[in-house]
C-alpha cells in the first residue's frame, strides 16, 4: 500500500517535471509579435526632452511629427497634410483630418500649438535640446481646428524640415506636462502613432501594442517588444538564437557568421560623415612639432599642408578594410545622392607624390610630428582609422601619433583645446545643418560653427551658405548647397573620411526591413512574413 502511493508520487513528480520542462524549453511567439534588439537606450518618456536618436527612434512609434523625412531625407506629410508659405515670415500648415490620440481624443491645431510652445518656452535645460529647431519661430496660432499659422522672426524657408524633429503631444486641459510627470507611471505616454505604449523599464525594455485605429491603416505588428542591448555581442547572439526578430547596429565583422546562420542582413549609408578636423587658428599649436621635437608655427594655416594630408589619406582602405565594405569613402559631408550633396565630389585614391610636392611647396619637405586625436568605440572604425591614417601619412614624412580616449574624455579635451587635429563626426536632418555646425564661422548670433572646434573662418563660404539657406526647400536650394560645399572643400578645412553604413539583421518572422539613413530603428520599417 505504502509502496504504491510512493510510486504514484514519483509518477506525479515525473509528470509535473515533464510539463514544466516542456514549458521551460519552448517559448511560444505570438502571431505577429516583433521582438527587436536595439542599441538605443530609451532614456526618458518625454518625447521633447533630448534630441538623441536613443529617444526619438523608439518614441516615434507612439508620437508623430507634422512632417516626416523619407529615406531620401525629403520632407513628406506626417500629421500635416500640406504646408505653404504665405509670406516671407509666415507658414501655414494644414493638418490631417480624423486623427485621434490613443485616448480617443481628436488631434487638432491646439495640440500643435501646445507641443511647439512646450519646446519653445516651457522646457528648461538640460531638457531643451529641441529649441534649436524652433528658434526661428515668433508665434504659433491655430486659425481653425485643422490649420496652424506659424510666424517666424526672419525668413525661415526650411521650417517644415525643422519641424520634422518635433513630436506632437496631446494638450492637457491646463498647463504643461513636466518631464517628471511623463516619466512617472501617472501619465501614460499618449500620441497619435501606430503603436500604443504598454510598458517600460528605463534602459531595459519598451513594450508596445498595435493602435487599431491608426489613421494610416492597421499597423503590421500586433505587439512590439524592444529590448535594449548595448553590447553588440549580445545583439548578435540574440539574433543568432532567434530570440529576437530584428537587431540594429550590427558590427560588420559579424555579418558573415550571421548570414551563415540564416539571418538576412541589410544596410544603408548613414546620413552623416566622419572626418578629420584641423585647428587652423591657434599659434603655436599644442601637439605639433618638427621631427626633432621643437615647436613649429601652426602648419594647418597653410592650405597646401591641409591638402597634402587629405591627398595622402587612403579612404578606400578605410571603407574596404577597416569597415569591411560597410562604409563609403567620403569626399563631402553627406553620402552622394542625398539632397544638397555634390555629384562632383567623389573620393579618390591617395596620391603620395602629389602630397609630398605640396608639403615641399609649403616648406615642410622634412615633414612634422602631430598628435591625431579621436574617440574610441563611439563610431564604427574610429580608433582603427587613426592607426591606418598615421601609416598613410608616414609615407609623406608626417609622423602622426594617434591618441584615442573614451568619447566623453575626448570631447572634454577637445573643447579645452588640447588637440591640434582630431576625428569628428556630423549627422542631422540635412546637409545644411552639418555645413552650419562644422564649416561655417563660429557666430553666436547665427548659431553657427558649434562643431567648428578648429575655428575655420571663410567669409565667402558663409555668404554662399546663407544665400543657399534662404532658398526654399527644393532642387534650387540643393544645388546652391552643393555649390557651397564644393567651394569650401576646395580649401580643405576638413578631411572627409567615410560615411559608415547602418547594418541591421532580421530572422524568419520578418520579410523585409528598410534601413533609414537617419539611423532610426522602428517596427514601421519591418514587414512581417506571410502578408
Amino acid at each position, binding site marked *: 500500500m505504502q509502496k504504491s502511493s510512493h510510486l504514484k508520487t514519483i509518477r506525479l513528480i515525473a509528470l509535473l517535471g515533464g510539463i514544466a520542462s516542456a514549458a521551460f524549453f519552448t517559448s511560444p511567439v505570438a502571431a505577429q509579435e516583433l521582438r527587436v534588439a536595439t542599441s538605443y*537606450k530609451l532614456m*526618458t518618456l518625454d518625447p521633447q526632452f533630448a534630441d538623441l536618436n536613443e529617444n526619438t527612434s523608439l518614441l516615434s512609434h507612439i508620437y508623430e511629427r507634422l512632417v516626416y523625412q523619407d529615406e531620401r531625407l525629403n520632407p513628406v506629410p506626417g500629421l500635416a497634410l500640406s504646408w505653404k508659405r504665405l509670406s516671407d515670415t509666415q507658414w501655414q500648415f494644414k493638418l490631417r483630418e480624423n486623427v485621434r490620440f490613443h485616448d480617443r481624443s481628436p488631434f487638432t491645431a491646439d495640440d500643435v500649438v501646445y507641443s511647439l510652445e512646450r519646446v519653445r518656452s516651457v522646457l*528648461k535645460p538640460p531638457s531643451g*535640446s529641441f529649441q534649436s529647431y524652433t528658434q526661428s519661430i515668433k508665434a504659433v496660432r491655430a486659425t481653425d481646428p485643422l490649420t496652424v499659422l506659424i510666424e517666424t522672426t526672419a525668413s525661415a524657408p526650411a521650417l517644415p524640415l525643422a519641424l520634422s524633429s518635433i513630436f506632437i503631444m496631446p494638450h492637457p486641459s491646463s498647463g504643461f506636462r513636466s518631464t517628471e510627470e511623463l516619466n512617472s507611471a501617472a501619465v501614460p505616454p499618449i500620441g497619435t502613432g501606430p503603436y500604443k505604449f504598454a510598458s517600460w523599464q528605463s*534602459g*531595459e525594455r519598451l513594450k508596445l501594442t498595435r493602435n487599431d485605429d491608426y489613421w494610416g491603416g492597421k499597423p503590421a505588428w500586433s505587439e512590439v517588444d524592444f529590448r535594449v542591448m548595448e553590447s553588440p*555581442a*549580445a545583439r548578435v547572439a540574440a539574433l543568432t*538564437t532567434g530570440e529576437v526578430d530584428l537587431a540594429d547596429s550590427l558590427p560588420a565583422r559579424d555579418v558573415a557568421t550571421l548570414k551563415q546562420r540564416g539571418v538576412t542582413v541589410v544596410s544603408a549609408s548613414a546620413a552623416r560623415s566622419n572626418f578629420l578636423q584641423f585647428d587652423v587658428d591657434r599659434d603655436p599649436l599644442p601637439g605639433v612639432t618638427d621631427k626633432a621635437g621643437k615647436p613649429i608655427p601652426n602648419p594647418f594655416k597653410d592650405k597646401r599642408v591641409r591638402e597634402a594630408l587629405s591627398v595622402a589619406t587612403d579612404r578606400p582602405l578605410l571603407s574596404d578594410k577597416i569597415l569591411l565594405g560597410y562604409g563609403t569613402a567620403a569626399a563631402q559631408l553627406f553620402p552622394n545622392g542625398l539632397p544638397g550633396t555634390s555629384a562632383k565630389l567623389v573620393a579618390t585614391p591617395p596620391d603620395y607624390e602629389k602630397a609630398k610636392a605640396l608639403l615641399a611647396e609649403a616648406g615642410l619637405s622634412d615633414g612634422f610630428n602631430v598628435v591625431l586625436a579621436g574617440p574610441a568605440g563611439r563610431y564604427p572604425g574610429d580608433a582603427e582609422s587613426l592607426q591606418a591614417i598615421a601609416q598613410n601619412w608616414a609615407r609623406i614624412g608626417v609622423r602622426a601619433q594617434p591618441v584615442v580616449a573614451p568619447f566623453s574624455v575626448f570631447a572634454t579635451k577637445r573643447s579645452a583645446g588640447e588637440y591640434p587635429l582630431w576625428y569628428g563626426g556630423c549627422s542631422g536632418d540635412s546637409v545644411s545643418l552639418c555645413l552650419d555646425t562644422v564649416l561655417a564661422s563660429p557666430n553666436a548670433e547665427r548659431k553657427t560653427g558649434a562643431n567648428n572646434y578648429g575655428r575655420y573662418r571663410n567669409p565667402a563660404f558663409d555668404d554662399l551658405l546663407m544665400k543657399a539657406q534662404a532658398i526654399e526647400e527644393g532642387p534650387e536650394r540643393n544645388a546652391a548647397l552643393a555649390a557651397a560645399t564644393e567651394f569650401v572643400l576646395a580649401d580643405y578645412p576638413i578631411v572627409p573620411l567615410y560615411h559608415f553604413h547602418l547594418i541591421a539583421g532580421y530572422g524568419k518572422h520578418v520579410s523585409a526591413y528598410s534601413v533609414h539613413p537617419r539611423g532610426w530603428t522602428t517596427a514601421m520599417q519591418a514587414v512581417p512574413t506571410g502578408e
Partner: protein
Amino acid sequence: MTLFSAVFGRMGQAVVLLFVMSLIGFVGIHAVGNPVFNIVNVETATVEDIQRATIALGLDQPIWRQYLVFAEDLLSGNFGISYVYHLPAFSLVMEKLPATLELAVVAMLLAATLGVLIGLVAGRQPGTRLDRTILRASVFALSIPSFWLSMMLILGGAILAGRFPSGGRGATARLFGSDWSVLTVDGLRHLVLPALALAIPNIALIARLTRAGTIEVEGLDFIRFCRAKGLSPHRILLRHTLPNISVPIVTIIGLQFGGMLAFAVVVETIFAWPGIGKLLIDSIQLLDRPVVMATLTFVSVAFVTLNALVDLFQAVLDPRVRLPRKG
C-alpha cells in the same frame, strides 16, 4: 557592553567608509570628463546649448562647491536627479535591485550547496582519484575569466544547444511592488546561464575551502573519538565536521555575495541582465554622477551590512566568538 561598543565601532567605520568612498567617487568621475557631452547631442548642439546645460546641472561650479551641494542633498536623503534618465538616482538603483538580488541569491544558493557538497566528498577521501579530479577542476574553474566563461555558456547553452536564451531577463511577475524573473518559467530560463556564470567560480572556491577544512578537522582527536564511539561516517560528517568548518565558509559566502550584488558587471553586461552592476558601468560610461554615487553608496552599505551579518552568524555558529572571556 562589548556588543554595544562593537556596534558603535562598526557604524563609525561605516560612516568614515561612506565619506571616503563618496569623495573618491565624486572626484574620480569629475576627473574623467564632462558629462554634458553625453547629455546633449554634440553633433548638433550649439555652444549655447552646451553652456546652458552645463549651468543647469551645476557643472560650471568649482568641484568643492559641487561636492558641498551633493553632501547637503545627501543629508536630506536625496542623491539628485540622474543626468541621463531624468529620474531620481536612488529610485533608479532600487528599481534595478530585484534583478541583481535574484541573480545573486540563485547563484549563491547554487554555489553554496554544490560547493559544500563537492568539498565534503573530496575532503572525506583526500588523495583519491576523485579528490584529485575535483582539485584540478576547481583550479580550472577559478582561473577562467568570467567574460570567457559567460561567452562559452552562451555558445554552449544558447547557440549550440538552443536550450536557453542568450540574454535579457525574460518575463517577470510582480511581487511586493517589484518585477521578479524567478516567479515565471520564462524568467527562470533566462536566469540559468547568468546564474551559472556567477556560480561556477564560487562553487570551486567554496569546494576548495570545504575540502581543506574537512581534511583538517577529520584528523582531529574529537573526530577520532566519534569514530571510536561507533558513530556513522554520515553523522560525523554532518553533525561534527560541518559545524566546525562552517565559520570560514560562511565568511566567504558573505563576502562573495556582496561582490555579486555590486560587481557582477561582466556577467550582467554580457547577458544583458539589467542589474545594479550594469547600471553602475553604464552610468560610469555616461558620467552620470548622481547614479554612480547612489550605486556606490548602496554597495558600500550592502557590504557593511553583510559583514555585520557574517559576524553575527559566526557568533551563532562558534561559541568561542559568542563568549569572549577575559584573561
